[in-house]
């Protein structure tokens, strides 16, 4: 294919590199373009106007614009795992090998069977599915919705994993300038020359904004050249960061802006290890919104055919990309900017056959048929524009054969980011558009066309002045000369003619008729209008359509536009890939891992790991011949109870508590007393929340007169520390208490079983006999010839047990040494499953019981809540509702038939009681198989459970169909006298 619509280079080469050719395909056909092209400009250069089908009616569509506001030319870019739907051809930077396909059509773009929707449009007016698909009710989910979703839609998503990487980062500056048109460049120059740290971000791959699309001069050079020179000057400043291909997509709290940098979207694939996109969080003292303005169309019948573009877009394609969209072109305008488009096109050798100017009076354009007081009332052409029908001032109609029409209904300042904090734009009748209000995000100033300052001179001036004001600069640089034409516009929102459809929101297929229907059905507020018609709810957020829809509603209601209201915008300014929001937090890297000191040893053994928060804990360690997890867990339990087992318990939180008030502090945060704990001893502690519910439990040891070491559950390590800091800093700042976490500083192992002491005696340098180191003893020791360590004689398994801690770097070696030196006792390393079995056998509470709903009384630990002192939660734990003598109590449960099965979460029922909520007696909190007892056992909360020991009940689980007869027993199901513990 030749580039048949490329303007002769002699008439102006545009900002493309004609010396290089890029090859690409669209719907499988090969085309050529040049560096500097967008996909849209390259397709238009090849005479391709038809680029998509509309959302609802499947109408043929081509590009409306030349920028990010594009509603129509949405394509699926790339193939395979990198296929990306809904990509705006008007902003896709052309690269060699680019592959694009049209979307939302079948079987082809030129012949789309779903085009039948257009013929049936009378049935598809706004709100049609609310009214049409009402019955039968069951059909909605199974039949109607799938059909509608298939018929109405955008592109398709690849089912393959995204192969690219996405970065996140943080930037800081004195001034963020959003948009690099004349206002933004002048602001950046002003701040940059003053030595301020500036970030200048622009969504385009070439800075200059509208200057790249215009022909007029800035100073004594063309505007595009001035822009290039300005960018070159800024690039030499170390205090200025230029960010092309970067869309500032949102204004957030505290001067933070979000920006997406398309690092590699202009390349076939990102370089290895490099991100495709980066999501930047920009912290800026001040920001200037210089995002320019977006031209809006005029609604008239069949105004959506391929070849009908915004007049400024026709001008941009000609000036910047050297492309004439049509051979015979007309302009339909209500303002002077449309006339500028006509003159620019004519200068590029385009045959401008007519300018249809809705205004009366004023001077006529020289050398162009200028029809004043005229309107375009209809168009024709099956897959692209072929002719327009014009109603002249005298009422006569005329058909004019053209293949491109430029429409200019005026320009809307891009206020979007200014309204991200809910600032409402205000209507400026001088430009017939909304401009930013006065209550935008703090620190954000607006300059240039975004502020309604439409001339180049005004843009330069307001850009400079905004920078001076934002940064309180003492010097204000001179401005180059530039055009300062006044805005001359006579608003025309839609052409009243006939009964056909006139499009307002082209992406969501919202027409003037739909707005009329919304009015007819009394959805007249702006917010109702939006939701009833879907106006502005497409991926373009109604950048070209919202104001027209609002104006049409104003006409219908007889109110002014300000009285009718306005819509505001939310982030993101343009669509953002979910990958960019996720960054690197996906798959295995969703969050960091925490590895225990024994991790490397366990991995060597083939351990199975379980995620506990960020920790990877050993769940069990299979041995050869063990084919399922229970075999491993049973073996670990039996071996521990028979001889000795070792478990890595480093994950338990450890908090070092020091200070002369440390004991008194613990008395206040724990329900039981710690100030009386002798040095060298430890005690089980129960911590309540303010509301009297159990918060956490653990063992705290007194290592010195003013020094304690608290342990917490693994799950609550952080929350307990945070709670203690709150207590220390906010509740009792007068106390002399200092806290610091030592969870990671010490590798800690539980050594449990009848031979635990014998094994440790081979490691520990001191005497740890029962007399020298009795039950609940704690102290600093040394191991293996002098290494500092800590020893606690505590047990979670019910066995003679210790917890031994060494500096973490020695954890791996300590484990290996214990296994080697204690080999004669056949030690086993057990995981969290075996740990769970042994603690249930002993009736110790853990996660299932510490569920945030239960009291110490529920757990059978009510006497631990000391009444002799005040502590957090003590008073509220005495509330009537929490002290019911028939309330839930922790019980043990075993099946009457040893083969009977139990499952956690099942409910207690009396025998013969119906399985309804009214008969619910409580639930099983934890269930394990006890290899010692030879059957399932469980813990549970049972109403008046302490009075039902020995009774028989049922355990019912309606989900699994379980209904097992059980006996209620003491929670202490193994060695209830604790003889092994103190052995």
């Amino acid at each position, binding site marked *: 294919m030749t580039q048949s619509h490329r303007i002769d280079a002699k008439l102006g080469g545009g900002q493309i590199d004609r010396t290089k050719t890029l090859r690409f395909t669209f719907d499988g056909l090969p085309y050529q373009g040049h560096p500097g092209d967008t996909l849209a400009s390259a397709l238009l250069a090849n005479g391709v106007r038809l680029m998509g089908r509309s959302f609802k009616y499947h109408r043929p569509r081509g590009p409306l614009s030349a920028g990010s506001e594009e509603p129509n030319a949405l394509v699926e870019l790339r193939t395979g795992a990198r296929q990306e739907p809904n990509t705006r051809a008007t902003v896709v930077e052309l690269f060699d090998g680019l592959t694009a396909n049209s979307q939302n059509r079948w079987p082809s773009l030129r012949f789309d069977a779903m085009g039948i929707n257009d013929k049936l449009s009378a049935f598809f007016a706004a709100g049609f599915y609310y009214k049409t698909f009402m019955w039968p009710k069951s059909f909605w989910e199974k039949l109607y919705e799938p059909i509608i979703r298939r018929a109405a839609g955008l592109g398709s998503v690849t089912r393959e994993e995204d192969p690219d990487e996405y970065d996140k*980062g943080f930037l800081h500056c004195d001034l963020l300038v959003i948009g690099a048109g004349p206002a933004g460049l002048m602001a950046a120059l002003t701040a940059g020359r003053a030595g301020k740290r500036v970030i200048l971000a622009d969504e385009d791959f070439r800075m200059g904004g509208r200057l790249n699309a215009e022909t007029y001069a800035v100073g004594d050079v063309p505007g595009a050249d001035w822009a290039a020179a300005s960018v070159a000057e800024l690039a030499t400043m170390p205090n200025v960061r230029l960010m092309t291909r970067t869309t500032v997509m949102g204004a957030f709290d505290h001067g933070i802006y979000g920006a997406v940098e398309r690092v590699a979207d202009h390349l076939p694939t990102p370089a290895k290890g490099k991100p495709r996109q980066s999501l930047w969080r920009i912290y800026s003292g001040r920001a200037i919104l210089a995002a320019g303005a977006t031209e809006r169309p005029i609604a008239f019948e069949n105004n959506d055919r391929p070849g009908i573009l915004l007049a400024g877009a026709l001008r941009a394609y000609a000036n910047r990309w050297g492309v004439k969209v049509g051979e015979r072109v007309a302009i339909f305008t209500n303002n002077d900017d449309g006339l500028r488009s006509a003159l620019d096109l004519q200068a590029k050798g385009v045959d401008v056959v007519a300018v249809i100017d809705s205004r009366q009076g004023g001077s006529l354009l020289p050398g162009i048929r200028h029809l004043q007081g005229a309107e375009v009332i209809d168009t024709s052409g099956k897959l692209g524009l072929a002719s327009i029908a014009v109603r002249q001032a005298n009422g006569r109609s005329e058909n004019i054969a053209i293949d491109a029409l430029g429409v200019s209904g005026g320009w809307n300042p891009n206020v979007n980011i200014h309204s991200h904090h809910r600032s409402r734009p205000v209507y400026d009748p001088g430009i017939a558009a909304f401009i930013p209000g006065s209550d935008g995000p703090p620190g954000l100033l607006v300059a240039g066309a975004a502020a309604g300052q439409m001339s180049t001179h005004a843009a330069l001036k307001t850009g400079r002045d905004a920078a001076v004001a934002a940064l309180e600069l003492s010097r204000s640089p001179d401005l180059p000369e530039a055009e300062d034409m006044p805005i001359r516009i006579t608003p025309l929102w839609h052409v009243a003619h006939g009964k056909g459809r006139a499009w307002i929101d082209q992406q969501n297929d919202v027409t003037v008729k739909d707005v009329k229907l919304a009015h007819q059905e009394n959805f007249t507020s702006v917010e109702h209008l939006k939701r009833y018609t879907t106006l502005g709810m497409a991926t373009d957020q109604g950048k070209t359509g919202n104001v027209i829809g609002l104006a049409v509603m104003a006409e219908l209601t007889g109110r002014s536009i300000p009285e009718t209201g306005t819509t505001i915008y939310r982030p993101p300014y343009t669509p953002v890939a979910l990958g960019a929001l996720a960054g690197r937090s996906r798959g295995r890297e969703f969050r960091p891992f925490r590895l225990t000191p024994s991790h490397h040893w366990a991995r060597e053994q083939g351990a199975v790991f379980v995620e506990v928060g960020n920790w990877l804990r050993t769940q069990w360690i299979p041995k050869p011949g063990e084919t399922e997890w229970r075999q491993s867990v049973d073996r670990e339990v039996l071996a521990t109870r028979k001889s000795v087992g070792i478990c890595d318990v480093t994950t338990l939180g450890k908090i070092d508590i020091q200070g002369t008030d440390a004991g008194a502090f613990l008395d206040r945060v724990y329900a039981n007393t710690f100030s009386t704990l002798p040095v060298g001893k430890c005690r089980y502690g129960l911590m309540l929340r303010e509301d009297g519910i159990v918060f956490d439990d653990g063992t705290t040891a007194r290592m010195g007169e003013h020094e304690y070491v608290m342990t917490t559950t693994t799950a609550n390590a952080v929350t307990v520390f945070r709670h203690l800091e709150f207590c220390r800093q906010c509740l009792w700042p007068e106390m002399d208490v200092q806290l610091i976490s030592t969870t990671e500083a010490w590798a800690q192992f539980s050594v449990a079983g009848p031979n635990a002491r014998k094994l440790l005696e081979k490691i520990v340098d001191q005497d740890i006999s029962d007399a020298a180191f009795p039950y609940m003893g704690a102290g600093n020791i040394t191991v293996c010839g002098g290494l500092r360590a800590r020893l606690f004689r505590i047990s979670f398994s019910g066995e003679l047990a210790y917890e031994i801690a060494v500096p973490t770097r*020695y954890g791996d070696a300590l484990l290996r040494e214990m296994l080697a030196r204690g080999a004669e006792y056949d030690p086993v390393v057990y995981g969290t499953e075996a740990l769970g079995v042994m603690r249930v056998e002993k009736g110790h509470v853990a996660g299932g019981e510490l569920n945030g709903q239960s009291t110490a009384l529920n757990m059978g630990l009510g006497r631990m809540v000391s009444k002799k002192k005040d502590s957090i939660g003590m008073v509220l734990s005495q509330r009537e509702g929490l002290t019911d003598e028939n309330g839930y109590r922790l019980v043990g449960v075993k099946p009457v038939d040893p083969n009977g099965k139990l499952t956690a979460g099942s409910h207690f029922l009396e025998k013969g009681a119906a399985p309804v909520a009214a008969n619910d007696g409580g639930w099983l909190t934890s269930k394990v198989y006890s290899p010692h007892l030879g059957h399932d056992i469980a813990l549970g909360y049972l109403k008046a459970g302490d009075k039902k020991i020995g009774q028989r009940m049922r355990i019912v689980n309606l989900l699994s169909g379980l209904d097992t007869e059980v006996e209620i027993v003491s929670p202490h199901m193994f060695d209830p006298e604790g003889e092994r513990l103190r052995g």
Partner: protein
Amino acid sequence: MVSLQPLTALGRREATTVTQGPLSITERSDVALASVAVRKGRGTDLAKAAEKADIPLPGPATHQPGTPYSAFWITPEMWFVEAPYASHELIADLLKHALGDAASITEQTDAWVAFDLTAPDLAPLLERLCNVDYAAQPEGYATRTVMDHLGVYLIKHGRGSARIYGPRSSAESLLHAIETAAHSVW
């Protein structure tokens, strides 16, 4: 003589250096670390004792180098004190001896993994890891920040020299995060 062989936070016998372009990431297992917190109302006593023992206690957001002790501020009335591990493995005991009962002192050596980063300019790397405005901070700047969801301390020794203290158990994840960010830059 202790018979146990230590492992570094990365699970290796010896601390290693990883390079990516001009960036070097060196695990430092030869640094002893302890927290020093002022006991209630004992600030003056602590300051005197610290001055006498040549233990720096710098102001907020600051790291102060010294020999053998360096220190950085971590929160009001609390510091982390560094010293060579070979000579100060028992850093908590040594500090307690020097500072007496005016401070609460806790060994922190193995609670953290320390990575020293060197490159001509670390700002392009660190801006992809944390929200610290590295370029604008002076040498000797120390702060708590977040990298890859992990709470870390960042100390700026120079434009191209920094130390990161991260949670020891997540040493591999933190190193991976630094390496992948480095790939984006270099």
